[in-house]
C-alpha cells in the first residue's frame, strides 16, 4: 500500500509519502520524527484530536470549548460529536479541567480549553 498526503502536525505542512512492504512502513518527505509517526498512523490507524464545544446551562456563556486530551480514531469523530451533544456543563470550570473521563473508552479525556467563570 502506498499513500501521499500532507502532514498536519505543524505549519510546515510537509508532503509525506508512506509505503508499506512486508509489514514495514517507510516514510519519505518528512522533516521531523513526528511526521514519520503521523504517516505511519495515517496508513494503519488514522487519528485526530477533536476540538469542539459543550453546551452549558449558563445563558451568558452558552458553550464551553473542549478538546480530547489525545487523538481518537478519525472515524469516531462524528459519533463523538453526537455524544458531546448530550452533555451539559452546570458548574464553574478552569481551563484544563476534565469534562468527561476516558471519553468513549478511548483512554483520553475530554478537557475544557477555556475557563468558565460563573
Amino acid at each position, binding site marked *: 500500500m502506498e499513500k501521499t498526503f*500532507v*502532514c498536519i502536525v505543524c505549519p510546515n*505542512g510537509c508532503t509525506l509519502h508512506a509505503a508499506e512492504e512486508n509489514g514495514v512502513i517507510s516514510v519519505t518527505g518528512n522533516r521531523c520524527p513526528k511526521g514519520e509517526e503521523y504517516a505511519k498512523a495515517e496508513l494503519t490507524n488514522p487519528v485526530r484530536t477533536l476540538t469542539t*464545544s459543550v453546551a452549558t446551562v449558563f445563558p451568558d456563556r452558552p458553550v464551553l470549548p473542549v*478538546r480530547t486530551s489525545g487523538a481518537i480514531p478519525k472515524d469516531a469523530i462524528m459519533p463523538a460529536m453526537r455524544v458531546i451533544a448530550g452533555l451539559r456543563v452546570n458548574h464553574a470550570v478552569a481551563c484544563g479541567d476534565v469534562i468527561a473521563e476516558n471519553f468513549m473508552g478511548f483512554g483520553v479525556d475530554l478537557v475544557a480549553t477555556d*475557563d468558565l467563570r460563573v
Partner: protein
Amino acid sequence: MADYDVTVIGAGPAGLAAALAADEKGKRVLLVERAARMGGILNQCIHDGFGLLRFGERLSGCEYASRYVRMVEAAGIETTLLTFVTRVEKKDGVFHITLVTKDGVRTVTSTALVLSTGCRERTAKQVGIHGTRPAGVYTAGTAQYYINILGEQPAKRVVILGSGDIGLIMARRLTLEGAEVLGVFEAKSTPSGLTRNIAQCLDDFGIPLHVSHTVTRVFGDARLEAVEISEVDEKMQPIPGTAQKIDCDTLILSVGLIPENELAETLGVTLDPRAKGPVCDQNYETLVDGVFVCGNALHVNDLVDYVSESGASAGAAAADYSGKARELAELTADGGFLYAVPERLDTAGDLSKTVVFFRSREVREKSQVSVSVNGETVFTKKYQRLKPPEMERIEVDLSRVKPGDRVTLELREA
C-alpha cells in the same frame, strides 16, 4: 509626567505580549481592551494548532490566550476592559488617549503607545458580490462567533467563498455541528490557506475545493436561497457561460484580512500599501516617534506565535522609548515579495538580530532569499518552496547598516 509609560491598545495576543514585555522592564503600563475579556479573537478560536513555536505544544486558541491572560493577571498589569479608544493625540511629545468606559469618558496620558488592534475581515461589499442582501451571508469570523461563543448554528447548506484559513477551519466546524458544506470556492488559482488546513479541514470531511471559481451573484430576499458560481480567468474575471446556481442558505466569506489601523491613521502614521499596516523599523516603531505597532495590525500573520513575538518586541521597545531621534535606513523588498516587514532600520538601535518577516508574491520552487547592503550580499537562505500563504521569518545581522545605506531583500531562483 505622563500617567503611564506605555499604553497598549488591544488585549489580543499581540497586546498581551506587549504589556508583559513593558511591565517586565518595570514600566507603568495600561492595557486597554474593547471587549469584556482579554484574549481577542483567540477566544473564539477553539481549534488547535496554536503555540507550537512559543510553548512547544499544540494548544487551542483559547488555551493559548488563557496562558497569556494568566501571566498578565499574575503580573498585576493595570487593565481596563469594555473600553473604547475614541481619540489619540500627541501633544508636546506625550500621547493623550480618550477612553470611553461604562463610567464615562476620561483622558489618560502616556509616553509611548503600542497599537495592537488586530485586523478585520474583508466583507461581501469589498469583493464585489452583487444581488439582493439576504440574511445568511457571513464572514467566516462571524460564523465562528455564532457557533463558538453564542452556541448557535447559523447554517444548514453552506457555500464557502475563499480558501483562507478561517474559512477552512469553519468548513470543518460547520460540518461537525451538522451543516452540509457543499464546497469551498477560491478565485485564485492556488489556495490561500495553510496546506495542512486543506488536509485536516476539507480532505478529512470530503469537502471539495474548487480553485479559479468565484461567487458572482446571490439570490434570496429574507434569507439566502442560492448563489451563482462562475469560473474565472487568470485575471480573476468571470468567464461567460460557466455560471451555475447552487442552492444554499448560507454563504461564508473567507476572502482576506486587512490590518486595522484607524487609530494609527489619525496619528498620521504612514502605511505600507504592500503589508497594509504601518511602515515600521526593527523595533516596530512606526514613522511617528513613540507609536509602536505589532501583531495583525502590522501585517496579517498566519501563526499566533509570531504575533506574540512582535508584541513582545514592540512592548520592550516602547518601554525603552526615550524620544531620542532615530537614524533610519530603508529596507526594500524586490517585486518577488508580496511584502516584507520591517521597511525601515534604525541604525541608532541594535540591528544585530534584525527579524524580517516576508511572503513571496507567487508559489515558487527552489528559491534563494538574500539581503544586501549597498549591493554587497550579507545574508542568503535557500528555500525548497515558498508560498504566499506561508509567512517566512529570517534573522539577519545588519549592525553594519548606516543611515542612507541601501538595504535590499532579493528573491531569485536557486
